[in-house]
């Protein structure tokens, strides 16, 4: 019997690839391997769970057993792949080796750990199991002189995940402090004016903003934590959440000699530098682009499913705007490609801003829309070039 198709990772990338593949090929044996519990869930829902009052179990859509039945595959949970032997067409899980006909790497990205004394006292949320741990701990109330109250949460990082969490938890009645060395929220996505528009939206929900300051150390104190900032000020909280970014999981691929830059490098066919080995999702760098969003990985899943079933298909990316889940100030962004030069042109009145990033000849390269201006998304999308033509 031919060796199976092996997929490492059961996140949105792994599961959607297999789902698409099964529409084209019901026969080929498939083994999926995951170091987590293999439950199917929607990662974007992890940063709106508190406002919606959802536990991790509420967010789980199906367990690994149900997924294996539905897709007609074998799923190995709580097992980590430890090495890839691409010449032999085998992967290693500790002592065991598994042969593959084709291999797909969908290993995602790992939360960045910063060298900061006491970093281990902070939580991070990058999958459903992390959410379960954090949500359970956060939902326990604390007692004080004034009675029971919700916990005070320190969120570190003002990027997409940090801002969404601050918003979500403040919206659910938690006291939130958002600390970041960034001068304004979402600096890697928004021009300054738009970032500033988000600040009153967060503070009016009760988020205390400590921007322009880095945490230099964290210590445990009683049941809570104490964080010291670079200006010497001290913040106390019941819990801390680190949201300082993600780094694509490239270790296994690198050790196997696959070409890696920011992510595992793949061409337009989503093939790595090794034959019969493919990659998609957060771990992959597709034709130079490492995009940590769902829309790109869905496009990759559809194209790769065809390629794996014998119909070689190149990946193309349409315009793929990113919605920031801060409902008190809706934001949608279509970032310009890395390295292109242009200028922001901003119109409107805060918090309703339309920021267009235009090149020399006036051509639209990207945009950021806040508040009521998000309605202009459709019109701007038509003017934008596709992410990967």
């Amino acid at each position, binding site marked *: 019997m031919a060796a199976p198709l092996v997929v490492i990772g059961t996140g949105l990338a792994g599961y959607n690839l297999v789902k698409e593949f099964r529409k084209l090929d019901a026969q080929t044996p498939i083994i999926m391997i995951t170091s987590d519990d293999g439950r*199917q869930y*929607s990662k*974007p*829902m992890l940063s709106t769970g508190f406002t919606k009052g959802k536990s991790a179990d509420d967010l789980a*859509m199906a367990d690994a057993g149900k997924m294996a039945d539905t897709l007609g595959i074998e799923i190995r949970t709580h097992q980590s792949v430890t090495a890839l032997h691409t010449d032999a067409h085998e992967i290693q899980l500790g002592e065991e080796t598994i042969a593959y006909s084709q291999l797909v790497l969908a290993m995602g990205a790992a939360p960045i750990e910063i060298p900061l004394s006491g970093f281990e006292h902070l939580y991070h949320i990058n999958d459903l199991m992390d959410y379960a741990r954090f949500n359970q701990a956060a939902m326990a109330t604390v007692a004080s002189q004034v009675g029971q109250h919700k916990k005070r949460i320190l969120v570190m990082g003002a990027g997409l995940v940090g801002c969404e969490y601050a918003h979500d938890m403040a919206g659910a009645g938690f006291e939130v402090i958002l600390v970041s060395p960034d001068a304004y929220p979402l600096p890697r996505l928004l021009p300054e004016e738009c970032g500033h528009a988000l600040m009153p939206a967060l503070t009016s929900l009760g988020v205390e903003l400590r921007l322009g300051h880095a945490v230099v150390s964290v210590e445990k104190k009683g049941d809570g934590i104490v964080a010291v900032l670079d200006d010497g000020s001290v913040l106390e909280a019941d819990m801390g959440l680190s949201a300082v970014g993600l780094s694509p999981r490239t270790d296994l691929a690198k050790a196997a000699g696959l070409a890696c830059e920011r992510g595992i490098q793949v061409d337009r066919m989503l093939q790595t530098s090794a034959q019969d080995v493919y990659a998609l999702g957060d771990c992959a760098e597709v034709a130079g682009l490492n995009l940590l969003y*769902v*829309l790109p990985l*869905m*496009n990759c899943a559809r194209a790769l499913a065809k390629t794996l079933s014998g119909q070689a298909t190149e990946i193309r990316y349409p315009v793929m*705007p990113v919605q920031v889940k801060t409902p008190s100030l809706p934001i949608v962004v279509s970032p310009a490609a890395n390295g292109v030069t242009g200028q922001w042109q901003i119109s409107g009145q805060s918090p309703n801003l339309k920021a267009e990033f235009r090149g020399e000849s006036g051509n639209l390269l990207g945009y950021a829309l806040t508040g009521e201006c998000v309605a202009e998304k459709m019109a701007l999308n038509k003017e934008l070039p596709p992410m990967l033509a």
Partner: protein
Amino acid sequence: MSQTLKKWQCIVCGWIYDETEGCPEEGLAPGTRWEDVPSDWLCPDCGVGKEDFEMIEI
């Protein structure tokens, strides 16, 4: 039926709900209007809720 049927798209993953076709796999008969899709219904591809869909032009 007076109104024309519409299409709705998931803004997170791009999946399209076409009222004309419904989504029989999910128990939504052809012709089911978006407003009649249950409020706890989830995108079959990425699992986000109805609020993350928007109407698209055809």
